[in-house]
């Protein structure tokens, strides 16, 4: 197996996307254009309910844009594929499979590996994420942090060109989260595919990102792209560097503006089901 992942670029061109719920249509993305740079860690950040998950679903091919185009290496995205894999919010491991079987799922489903080589690869990856002792446990028996690591392994074994991380560390406590971030940074710096990482936590966004894409409220588009330009490999000691603080101040300003706008517009804003945030009547 080759370890050189092909690096892919994803381009959003004037994408528009609507969703219907409660028999009312809402515009989620409007005229949204940006480029996900190949081989970089691109972080999307914005107020909750602003359509970040929709962006992930569009790239993954679970949804199609209503307007505009989503291109990967110049070709439009036609549907889900193992080349673009999602690590879901609060994990979507198959609860009826053990940790080991979950990781094996991809290669066996496509039939690209023999059982033997899939087994070897799985064991290698599980060892890499520190779960070799837990391989026969069901997801419900693992801690939150271990579930996330198992899900990472399940995606990585397929060697995808684009990794889509949809708030993968949400729901973890802050300290486990911190460790997971370091862990994830290490993995990214070793394997280096194109990554799209969605989060609503600023600190996490800055320490991970090459490019920080700040989104506006619904209907969303990209408000600004900040190039982080902190050296790699990264670690949390950089959090006190001047560059980091500058970016944090700038992004805080941008996000606070959006938060205020959101609360002003809340009369018109719709319910964000994902976070359980409801508008007061």
């Amino acid at each position, binding site marked *: 197996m080759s370890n050189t992942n092909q690096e892919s670029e994803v381009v959003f061109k004037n994408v*528009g996307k609507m969703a219907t719920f409660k028999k009312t*249509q809402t515009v989620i993305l409007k005229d949204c254009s940006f480029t996900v740079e190949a081989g970089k860690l691109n972080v999307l950040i914005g107020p909750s309910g602003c359509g970040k998950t929709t962006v992930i679903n569009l790239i993954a091919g679970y949804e199609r844009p209503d307007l505009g185009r989503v291109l990967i290496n110049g070709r439009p995205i036609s549907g889900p594929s193992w080349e673009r894999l999602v690590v879901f919010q609060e994990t979507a491991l198959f609860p009826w499979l053990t940790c080991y079987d979950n990781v094996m799922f991809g290669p066996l489903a496509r039939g690209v590996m023999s059982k033997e080589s899939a087994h070897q690869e799985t064991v290698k990856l599980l060892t890499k994420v520190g779960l070799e002792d837990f391989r026969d446990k069901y997801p419900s028996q693992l801690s939150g942090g271990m579930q996330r690591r198992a899900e990472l392994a399940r995606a990585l074994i397929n060697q995808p060109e684009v990794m889509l991380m949809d708030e993968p560390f949400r729901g973890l406590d802050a300290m486990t989260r911190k460790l997971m971030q370091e862990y994830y940074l290490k993995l990214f710096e070793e394997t280096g595919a194109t990554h799209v990482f969605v989060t609503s936590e600023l600190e996490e966004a800055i320490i991970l990102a090459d490019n920080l894409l700040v989104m506006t409220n619904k209907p969303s588009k990209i408000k600004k792209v900040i190039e982080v330009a902190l050296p790699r490999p990264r670690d949390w000691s950089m959090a006190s560097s001047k560059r980091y603080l500058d970016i944090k101040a700038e992004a805080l300003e941008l996000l606070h503006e959006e938060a205020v706008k959101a609360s002003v517009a809340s009369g018109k804003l719709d319910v964000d*089901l994902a976070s359980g945030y409801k508008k007061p009547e």
Partner: protein
Amino acid sequence: MANAKEETLDFIWHAPTFKTKLVNRNTILSAVSIASLFLSWALLVHFQVYRFSLLPSPAEVLEEGIAWVKTNVFWIDAFATTLRVLVGVLAAYIIAIPLGLMIGWKKVFSDLTFPTLEVLRPIPAPAYLPLAILLLPTREASVAFIPFIDAFFPVLLNTITGVKIIDRDYFRAARCLGSSPKQIFWHVVLPGALPSISSGCAIGMGIGWMGAVVGEMITGKWGLGYRIWESYILIRYPLIVDGMIAIGILGLASSVLIRYLTVRLIPWRRAITESLDESITK
């Protein structure tokens, strides 16, 4: 150029709110579904396929049904059955709900009663009929015992679960705010279990109708269940189907009534069900 594009986009985005049309694919399919049910019934009877020749056709059923509704017999039957169901099921509510609340709330009480109830639970309601006949003064009253038993356990179990799934933090908050055990019962245990109790009540009502029909068929002199059985013996086959339809409609109506009443009783539930609807449509 950009401007023109903006306009076209806006036209789509500010499209009028999407309304469900009265005639869309779903309603058409539903109509087809129900129509084909009646049509296949009529055809199977008409062409006398296998033993369908013995069954009455929809037209006969309709004709006989209209005649039946005009007689007093129908109204007395319907009243008798409804009364039995209501008496039995309401008795089940009155006993099972407080019992369930106590079992769910107090471990000691649960230990003392629940094992016995668990042992009695698998005995199906019709098996109680001989005992009911023995226990109750009239044969007619004993029929009401079956819906009682039938409704009792679903209501009881739902009530117990209702209490068990109340978040522990509500009890803690109530104690924090200085409530006595009695106040906790009225302000936390009872309202907290209500949603689950209400669904238990609806289930109980549904099963109660089944119980009443069983009782009437085996040992009744009045009621829709008895009438069905009698029509079979007197070879008035269309009336069998009419009886079945009457029972179906009344059972459905009583379940809907319970659901409606409980929604009125539980105003805070509306918010929950609404958000549930939303998540489903999404």
